[in-house]
């Protein structure tokens, strides 16, 4: 525990914002989805950092549940992408705007 907690938090913030930039700039639905996974993981890094520096395991339990939700999200999201590709034959999220008013 001899390195400052700030280093981990800044790395976590950097990865989160890389994920945000990925969601905003990429047009491929799968890459947008992977950027969301990156954002979830950077939040996990913050939780584990605080948990470890406080000597309390609650943060790591939260990470466990976040991983569960991420697995469920990946399964359902990829099924949606698959169904979308079957109907429209594209992965471009600009072409899939049936919910846009």
């Amino acid at each position, binding site marked *: 525990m*001899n390195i400052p907690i700030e280093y981990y938090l800044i790395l976590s913030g950097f990865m989160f914002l890389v994920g945000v930039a990925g969601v905003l*700039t990429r047009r491929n639905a799968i890459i947008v989805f*992977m950027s969301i996974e990156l954002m979830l993981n950077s939040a996990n*890094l913050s939780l584990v950092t605080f948990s470890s520096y406080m*000597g309390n395991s609650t943060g790591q339990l939260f990470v466990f549940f976040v991983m*569960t*939700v991420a697995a469920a999200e990946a399964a359902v999201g990829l099924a949606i992408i698959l169904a979308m590709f079957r109907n429209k034959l594209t*992965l471009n999220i600009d072409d899939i705007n049936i919910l846009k008013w």
Partner: protein
Amino acid sequence: MSLQLILFILFGTISAISSVLMITRTNALISALFLILNFAGLSGLYLTLNAQFIAVTQVIVYAGAIMVLFLFVIMLLKPEHEKYFSHQPKLKIFAFFIAFIVFIQLVFMIFVSHPSQGNNANVAASVKAGTIEEIGKQLYTNYVLPFEAAGYLLLAATIGAIVLAKKKFE
């Protein structure tokens, strides 16, 4: 320079660089491989934080299960290159600008608030918090209801994925 700092720099650099490479590659398959590298680096970072259980789970669940699912779907669908997609360079510049501004704000806030001050880092407590014994004990006593709910969530996700992927919706 302590070993923890060296390992932090090594794994942190791997994670940061592979995350940037992930969002800049045009091929979705190469992006997915960089994301796996990023998860491996994160797993190393968790080990430097004494979180053994989370480090192993990161490799098994994320790199082993979720990313294999991603690679499977990418290979199942046609690997089309994104350069044929419409792209708006103005939106791209705006997005990177916003992300940069928020990052500067975040760094400023982290350094102003001094999270490590008043935090007597106790290595023994930290090592104990990361063991599978402690996490398992918490999971089956204080957090048994969320644990069961997570099981139902996974069941619902499995059924939902099968229903969505099975038939065409009109």
